[in-house]
């Protein structure tokens, strides 16, 4: 996919993008619409990072079942990101711990990092998108 996309995007610039998720899913639409943003970004051949911290960690909690709400359950899409070459997913350890969650509760492969390392990583980005 990478080659095709590089032809499509003529600018040639590669920036470090980070999409930061701090909010729980379903109570607000941000989680879903950020995910749509992440998917689109795949077409631009940028260096894409996706971060989950604070209540954002609930976005990738296993076992989401929205039948009784009527909302679309979009959580399986996080597992599809790999197919778009979006593989740099980071979760903050402290955020998991405060919420009584562990890596085993997550539905997708991620790198669990400390708050200090997340902060350092954020500092290396060119573009940070939040909602």
């Amino acid at each position, binding site marked *: 996919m990478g080659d095709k996309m590089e032809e499509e995007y003529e600018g040639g610039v590669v920036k470090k993008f980070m999409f930061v998720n701090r909010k729980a899913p*379903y*109570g*607000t*639409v941000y989680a879903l619409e950020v995910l749509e943003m992440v998917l689109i970004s795949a077409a631009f051949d940028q260096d894409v990072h996706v971060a989950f911290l604070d209540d954002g960690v609930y976005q990738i909690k296993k076992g989401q079942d929205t039948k009784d*709400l*009527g*909302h*679309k359950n979009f959580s399986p899409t996080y597992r599809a990101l790999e197919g778009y070459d979006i593989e740099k997913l980071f979760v903050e350890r402290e955020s998991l711990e405060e919420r009584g969650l562990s890596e085993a509760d997550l539905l997708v492969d991620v790198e669990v990092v400390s708050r200090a390392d997340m902060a350092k990583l954020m500092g290396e980005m060119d573009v940070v998108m939040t909602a």
Partner: protein
Amino acid sequence: MKFGILVNEGPYNHQASDSAYRFAKAAIDKGHQIFRVFFYYDGVLNATKHSDPPSDDRNVVKNWQKLAEDHKVDLVVCVAAGMRRGIVEDSLAPGFRISGLGQLIEAGIQADRMVTFGD
């Protein structure tokens, strides 16, 4: 029992409108009456006839419309809040009507319980 419902937020961005709809439906199914649903603040945006969400997601506007159709629920949109946000007669989906804020206070007086859903 007569319930009044106040919806403070628009469709999709917040779950408030979905929760209000589920509550209203459950109340009706249990034999209660919905005296009125009043849409205020960004809640007025629930009344737009132009909403066209992806087909694999719920349709918040249609849910309200159907509730109005099936159970004659009075769906009232605040005129002043609507004008700020571009919800006018022309933009209304069937089942909604525009009126003044007095209709909310009246619901508070007439209903046995007022239940509010917001951000």
